[in-house]
């Protein structure tokens, strides 16, 4: 059976992992590829590198990261952040990235999703949506620029459009929950999962083991993403997957 995935995410700036790392056995704890290799060994199903500054100087570093990851990792990986055009995405795919993830660029120019899915196939195109709740109802707004700028675009409608244009997956981050360790925004995750015919990766808010299972069972997500709880060593990936398996979720444990 096709398994549900556990995905550690690394925020990268100038080639270095931004959030604190608590791995003592790493030669270079700030090196995203070294960290990703640990997650590969621990049973991560894939990893995501997000270039969170993505200045033009930074791009060469990110391309270098993508080629080193191709040489070092034995699981699929995604590079996201900072794409301005299809050529930038093509360079990343040619460097070995299995998928690219677009957020601000896709909202600015939705045609990029169409072009990317035609050029690389839908399976290689993730659209990342940073969503923040509006008012008291089940309504969310999409933000850009790392969650700093509101766009006025309804997050659910945007997810639907991204899927129609050929996105292969939605990486859905709740800005209300990100960093809180209170768990995923379940209504948001479930609403998007039911609205689109493509896999949804739940992101933002994991603090407890239960949260991972909730994202899949209650949020109806296909994959769960976390950063700090893995970087700080709060949970190992195996621990998370064993917990999910006990909750009846199909996961890959033969690694």
């Amino acid at each position: 059976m096709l398994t549900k995935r556990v995905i550690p995410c690394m925020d990268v700036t100038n080639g270095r992992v931004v959030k604190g790392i608590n791995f003592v056995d790493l030669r270079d704890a700030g090196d995203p590829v070294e960290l990703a290799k640990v997650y590969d060994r621990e049973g991560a199903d894939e990893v995501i590198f997000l270039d969170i500054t993505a200045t033009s100087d930074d791009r060469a570093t990110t391309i270098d990261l993508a080629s080193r990851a191709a040489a070092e990792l034995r699981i699929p990986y995604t590079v996201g952040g900072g794409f301005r055009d299809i050529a930038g995405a093509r360079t990343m795919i040619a460097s070995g990235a299995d998928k690219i993830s677009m957020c601000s660029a896709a909202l600015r120019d939705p045609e990029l999703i169409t072009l990317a899915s035609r050029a690389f196939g839908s399976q290689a195109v993730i659209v990342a949506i940073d969503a923040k709740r509006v008012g008291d109802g089940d309504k969310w707004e999409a933000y850009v620029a790392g969650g700093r700028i509101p766009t006025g675009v309804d997050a659910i409608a945007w997810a639907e459009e991204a899927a129609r244009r050929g996105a292969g997956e939605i990486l859905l981050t709740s800005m209300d929950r990100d960093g809180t360790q209170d768990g995923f925004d379940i209504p948001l995750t479930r609403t998007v999962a039911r609205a689109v015919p493509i896999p949804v990766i739940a992101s933002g808010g994991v603090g407890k083991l239960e949260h991972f299972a909730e994202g899949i069972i209650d949020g109806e997500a296909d994959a769960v993403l976390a950063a700090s709880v893995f970087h700080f060593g709060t949970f190992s990936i195996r621990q998370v997957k064993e917990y999910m398996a006990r909750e009846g979720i199909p996961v890959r444990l033969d690694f």
Partner: protein
Amino acid sequence: MAPRIVIIDYHKGNLLSVARSLSDVGAEVEITDDPGKIAAAEALVLPGVGSFEDAMGFLGESGEGAALVDALTRKVPFLGICLGEHLIMEGGDEAGSGWCEGLGVVEGTVRRLDDSTLKVPHVGWDQLELTDVGRSCPLFAGVADGAHVYFTHSYALSDDVDPGVVAARTDYTRAFPSAIWDGGTLFAVQFHPEKSSTVGLRILENFVRLVQGGGA
């Protein structure tokens, strides 16, 4: 001496992870688009993702396809991966343009997965159900029935493939053949061993050992 494995490059993608995985398990690897080197190879790997028709076009014009078919006739050990598995078949569906001829080394065709019940492309970690052929196949020595490997594809081998060469099936929309073995030195898989962590490395290591030792 390390066995030398030639990876056939038809200019459709990054071959670094395939190359590195093979060298991790003891092979000396050369990536080439030169039909002469393909003809002289001790063992061949045909990787790939993308369009069947584009790949056939390139293999035809470059002369790589003819060199590969000739090598397979001489029983040079071979591993096809994903699109590389599809290309050795008689032919397949292709979006937009209908039927496309393959290299025709193995009987059977490639068909699109039906997206009426499940999401297509089939992407992620799914299981290998080893057949009787698979349980005696040296490529899967030490690999458990039900092992998880990484898939990313919209097309798969069809039911017209001889069950006598089907080493594993995977059930997604249909129980498609996810690995084939001709009983000799020809192997082809739908999944990506180079992206399948320890299980994938085990499979590649089995292939390298087989090239080295002439058997399992």
